[in-house]
């Protein structure tokens, strides 16, 4: 229990303004839902620790401003993500169509190894649905992504979708992870590992300058 986590990585929430990215994040990290929409202007993040496959994973989840005018700036954050949620709102056809644009931005700016997942939020709003589940499934298939319909409001599929993306990121980084696993039992290596964590942390710390590199 002395060690807080074994690995740290970053996930990024992308999608039009108002699709519910901030709500998804709040629901996942604090299990809370605030119905008011204060649009995110900037880049915010929260931490969450999950245990996957016996490995304590600390996830830093970045919530970005969805508005068009900030996108040249927010794109610069893509390259520091290991996993990306592409979020649309099932009650907004427009937000679904924009997924294409978001996905192509991700291709352009995010690292090659980045893991993606498609999320159709607000699944509780049955009466206002504009995007059929099948459309989401189809699009996800076309992109080779996993797909979840979620509701930050009812807490539907929230943990599932976050866990899935985290698992995918873990799998994509399996090589590094296997090394880590091997050293888990070895007390000497643990300290070495903790130093590495320190490095990870300082990586978070000096976003100041590291931000655009």
């Amino acid at each position: 229990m002395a060690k807080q986590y074994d690995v740290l990585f970053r996930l990024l929430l992308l999608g039009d303004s108002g699709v519910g990215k901030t709500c998804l994040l709040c629901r996942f990290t604090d299990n809370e839902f605030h119905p008011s929409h204060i649009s995110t202007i900037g880049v915010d993040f929260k931490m969450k620790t999950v245990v996957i496959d016996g490995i304590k994973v600390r996830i830093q989840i970045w919530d970005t401003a969805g508005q068009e005018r900030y996108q040249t700036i927010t794109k610069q954050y893509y390259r520091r993500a290991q996993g990306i949620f592409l979020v649309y709102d099932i009650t907004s056809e427009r937000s679904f169509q924009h997924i294409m644009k978001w996905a192509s931005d991700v291709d352009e700016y995010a690292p090659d190894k980045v893991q993606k997942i498609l999320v159709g939020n607000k699944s509780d709003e049955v009466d206002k649905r504009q995007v059929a589940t099948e459309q989401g499934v189809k699009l996800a298939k076309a992109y080779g992504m996993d797909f979840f319909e979620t509701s930050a409001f009812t807490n539907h599929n929230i943990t599932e979708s976050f866990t899935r993306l985290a698992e995918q990121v873990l799998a994509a980084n399996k090589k590094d992870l296997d090394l880590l696993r091997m050293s888990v039992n070895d007390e000497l290596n643990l300290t070495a590992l903790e130093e590495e964590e320190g490095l990870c942390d300082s990586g978070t710390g000096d976003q100041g300058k590291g931000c655009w590199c």
Partner: protein
Amino acid sequence: MDQSVAIQETLEREENCTIVSFFCSHALVYGLLIPEKKDCLFETKIFIYNHRRMAITGDDVSLEDIIPISLDFAVVEVFCVVCLILGADTRVRVSYCEEELELRLPFGSHSRCFLTEVNRAWSGRSSLRVISLAPASTTVGKLNQHRKTGLLSDFYFVEINRHSSYSGISSREDRDDLVRSSSHTPSNKAQILTMPQFGLRDTLIRCELLKNEESYTYLENFSFFLGTYNVNGQSPKESLRPWLSCTLNPPDMYCVGFQELDLSKEAFFFNDTPKELEWTKAVSEALHADAKYALVKIVRLVGIMLIFFVKKEHAEFISEVEAETVGTGIMGRMGNKGAVAIRFCFHNSDICVVNSHFAAHIEEYERRNQDYKDICSRLQFRQLDPTQPPLTIMKHNVVLWIGDLNYRISDLDVDNVKELISNKDFETLHTYDQLKRQIDKEAVFDGFLEGDIDFQPTYKYDTGSDNWDTSEKCRVPAWCDRILWKGKNIEQKHYHSHMALKTSDHKPVSSMLIVGRINGEAYKKTFEDIVRNIDKMENECIPSVSLSQREFDFKDVKFMQHKAQTLSLFNDGQVPCQFEFIQKPNEPTYCKPWLTANPYKGFIAQGGSVDIELEIFVNRTTAPELNFGKQMIEDILVLHLERGKDYFISVTGNYLPSCYGTPINLLCQLREPIQDMTQETLRKLVSIVLNTEKPLDIPKELWMMVDHLFRNAIKQEDIFQQPGLRSELAEIRDCLDTGMPDSLPGSNHSVAEALLLFLDSLPEPVVPYHFYQQCLESCSNASQCEKVISMLPQCHQNVFNYLAAFLRELLKNSASNRLDVNILATIFASLLLRSPMKQDFAEKRKTQEFFQHFLIQGSS
């Protein structure tokens, strides 16, 4: 700037010290010096220097004081609300002997490093105070002389707020001032300055985790029945119930061990015996009748066997069951002696049960110790994951060890032993027990516990009876059969022998151990709770500020009009934070050149706030692009909090195009005031040169200014030398940009300055850049100069000649306006003939020479 060189130069050679750290503050440089040699006469000291300018050589600095970091030395941080909010300076109070002084350290790594080193030196300080012992030739000695003259005190008073309680110089007010700004007194020397703990959050989280672990988890008890029986090669002849069902309640687990199950050669060589089944059957028939048990595992090495039963309801929580054996018999390998062991995972605990049979014979106790060690090192369970190192006995949370350990009673003859037994003085007898003695000597079973022995020795009896061995060997009775354990939260309920069983020359022994175990579900839940709490705490600890405004609309912005708006940051987070506007990709600075944020970085204490001025100022460099909509007053600033989020702040405004910053050729095409044109028209004018109408000879704005001056200021004293008024300049600019009044507002001086500004702000000077070199080359020859001018684009040429003519008119009136050729050439050459690069003095002279040709009366 590294001023340490300068400091080094001031030091005498023999002082041999290293400058560890230094920093500058106000007029003083502070250096921390440590001796290179461990010279007790030279402890670490802070040297304080006064410096004349940026110290480059030793001459630039003079030593003002030395503070030895001795026992009398203390540094405390001066906490005051004001400086925390400003964030800029760290204030510390240094005291030594009866003196104290307050330092303001500029915020930054230099100062932090300095304080760290001071702190380190203090921890390793020597108790000697040597300042007065130092030889006079050294720097220290010089200072002492200096000090006697009393030159220092006054200086310090002004510069660094020095207080000297014995000098009596400090006035009452000064004292109060200092007291007000500090909540600490330096007398408390324990309050040594500590560095800002940026890692504190992590430590806190970790502590919380450990603290909560205890209170959140709870123990659940499980009973382990442990039994060991050396059966001397016999088959079961009687029920084992008196042994295995001796408890009131059914145990949760049974771990039953046998030794000498089969003494036959077959068993020894082929490890094959019918006895295994016989005894297993006997055991299962004798288990407690009030519960159902499942057989989990049997492991046997020749005659050493261990059987593990678990109550049915617990079976699902048993996992990772492995069994191993180790022979320690003849040749250190054979299985007549040795151990068998079963490991398993029960809920979250790893448990290992060992049944061993050590070497026999009273004198062989060291051999038995050796057996123990061999078993511990050689018995290894394989891991499910082949990449992991094998698991040894001692890596388990709980180790239960049973068996015929064969330790005897020594140094006491048979009769004495039997007497102690018949007196039931087991306590005394136990002091002669080899196992106890060896454990006390830490020679074996390190870390294991055994309960008090309150039963008579279990060895050696005549088979079928309770009588002590009557054979001719007539062995001394001994507690061969033992049960020990290792691990947390284990309690022994009973430790018995069972006289009723008579099959063997040993009596069986049993013990009930209550093993406290972290409840699996509770453990998991607790773990999750803690992790959630940490996450929550951590998320709360992410620096956060609230912004008074996210969008700043500066509305109409005019050329050289200073506009400012205030952005207030309030630290609404749980931690102090550092903010900074950070650079965006592909941009050289954090904002557009016409914008500044002041301060652009800083520190905000928790609950504190900072006002940032966002200032817009469009000058001649930034105006041209804005005039024609190539650029807009539009920017997004990224405000970054260290270890925290980024905020986007958008700045917008509407730039009103101006004749200032607009090229001459374009102005010549504008018949209307520039602000009456649409952005669209302006943009078109730039891209495709609209030649619909004949352009004006010179820009009308220029004409308006010059004409105004010609009519009103031709005799004005000090014209072009006296500055105008800011407000009037703005009025003139607006007037030129919006209309064509008959006369311009403002004084003559303002109009004159407006004209100079106009020329200065032209993106392409009157003499375009690419003619500049030619001008320099022809400057000494008047006709050459005229030739160059005749090659200028028509409108530029017009402007040049028009201005020159006007200036010549001015010179005609030099008696009243006190102008001369030199003055005008100096002023105007620098505006009309601008260098594309940095201009040196010689070039400047040439441009003036060039222009003078045009100011001489009678020329063109």
